């Protein structure tokens, strides 16, 4: 093995590069996803750190209320019309670089996540990596939720990061939702 450092600082051993649906670990369902965002690192960090901004691009999040600087209460649309409440606490905060959070015990689900911001060494903007993970609640609903969640965090991480990128780069979130954004015929002969 060569002693040469890799030409980029991408972490090739990270789960983002592993070919598996779920990252083995503490949680039932988890996913990591990366996106290059053509905006300064600090601006992206600041936007995300103010958690009240997050419903602007997180489609499932109905509301976020700030309890204290590092604590917030979330109302999230769950599968099959359910509503999930959780209280989230920031567990690590490195300004401009990294934010990690975790749900507190009174929450409906166990949830943990982090987001990392790195300068791209070749001037293409900021490399953003997001990790999210869940444990579904117990009971009957929990079973449904668990089933959906096998896929859900991957889909969610992917779509939320795309929307975050859109909002940061263009100032808006692309949409083609019928009928207003994209009219369509509802007659089906």
């Amino acid at each position: 093995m060569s002693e040469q450092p890799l030409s980029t600082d991408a972490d090739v051993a990270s789960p983002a590069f592993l070919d598996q649906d779920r990252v083995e670990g503490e949680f039932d369902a988890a996913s990591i996803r990366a996106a290059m965002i053509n905006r300064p690192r600090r601006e992206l960090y600041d936007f995300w750190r103010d958690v009240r901004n997050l419903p602007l691009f997180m489609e499932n999040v109905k509301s976020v209320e700030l309890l204290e600087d590092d604590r917030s209460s979330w109302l999230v649309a769950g599968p099959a019309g359910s509503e999930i409440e959780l209280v989230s606490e920031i567990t690590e905060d490195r300004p401009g670089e990294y934010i990690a959070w975790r749900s507190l015990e009174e929450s409906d689900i166990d949830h943990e996540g982090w987001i990392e911001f790195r300068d791209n060494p070749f001037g293409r903007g900021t490399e953003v990596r997001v990790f999210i993970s869940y444990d579904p609640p117990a009971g009957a609903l929990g079973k449904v939720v668990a089933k959906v969640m096998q896929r859900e965090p991957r889909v969610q991480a992917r779509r939320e990061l795309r929307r975050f990128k859109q909002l940061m780069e263009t100032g808006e979130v692309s949409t083609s939702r019928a009928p207003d954004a994209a009219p369509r015929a509802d007659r089906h002969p």
Partner: protein
Amino acid sequence: MRALAWHGKHNIQVDTVPDPQIINPRDAIIRITATAICGSDLHLYDSVIPGMSNGDVLGHEFMGVVEEVGPRSTLKRGQKVVVPFTISCGSCFFCGKQQYSACDNSNPADKSDASEIAYGYPMAGIYGYSHLTGGYAGGQAEYARVPYSDVGPIVIPDGIEDEKVLFLSDIFPTGWMAAENAGIEPGDTVAIWGCGPVGLFAIKSALLMGAGRVIAIDHHPRRLELAKKNGAEVLNYHEVKVREALTEMTAGIGPDACIDAVGMEAHGFAPDNIIDAVKQETKLGTDRQHVLRETIMACRKGGRVSVPGVYGGIGDKLPIGAFMQKGLTLKTGQTHVQKYLPQLLQMILEGKVDTTDLISHRLPLEQGPEAYRNFHSSQNEWTKVVLKPH
């Protein structure tokens, strides 16, 4: 409003649908004055592009008058604009490189999964061209919502007829980029398969770029006639063996560049094409790549192959040995329309290029279904259709 909607294979109807609204700050609403049917629409008509859904509004070649603007649009009410068929944000990595048709942001997040699975990365948004490319409503309608209206549409000076500039929306830039991708050097011989609208604009562009000789291939006499009028020598593939003719005409060297302006629905009874057609019919997602194979085989050693023709699925039996051994270069892609607009508009205004000679029919939007039928099945007489919604 009235709009042409897709209801399945060979089933296009005029429907009354809700009017589009301004949703995002950079949106504009355009009142459409002219819109065209493209060869690409025929791939939807024939149902060989996946991701269409019953009721989708069609059309990606359109122009009109700015009716309403969002707070961050740079357009003004009453301006006449032509809208590029590719939707581009103007601020991502790809737009920064002028690779507008690769825009990373214009395909909504919930629509991007399919193309990411099919092609490795999510594709940009395109008007009226399936949910793979965003699920946006198209412009074969009275009105259209135009996202990122500060980046896409080009403002047309007063007093220019719609027909002269309408094809800036797609086929003129597409023919131009096809010729650019062919890397034409002065005196080159360029062979172009397909004398449809894209092939015809590729002929015009190749000659403007200094090609010494253009040889155009099709089998519809009218289309071949149009190609001839534009300065091409023509080959009817029902009458001659194309590859042998090209070798003979170039005294054994072969064309310096070959352009596939046909795409995934090539006609022909060569065995490869029949197998491809069967697979396509049985929905295996196989493209009919007869022309692509022929361009690779016909091209001279060290030559260039340019592919504006659309492919959507998976192909096999590509003559990869010929491609490698001859050292060919291949370039392709959905057109980066925005990149070419100022330059091409200027050429139209200066009268350097005839952009209307290919129009065979002008019809009201209400006759859209009939226009699709004929542009599909009577290609000899129906060379390009312009629809007028207002």
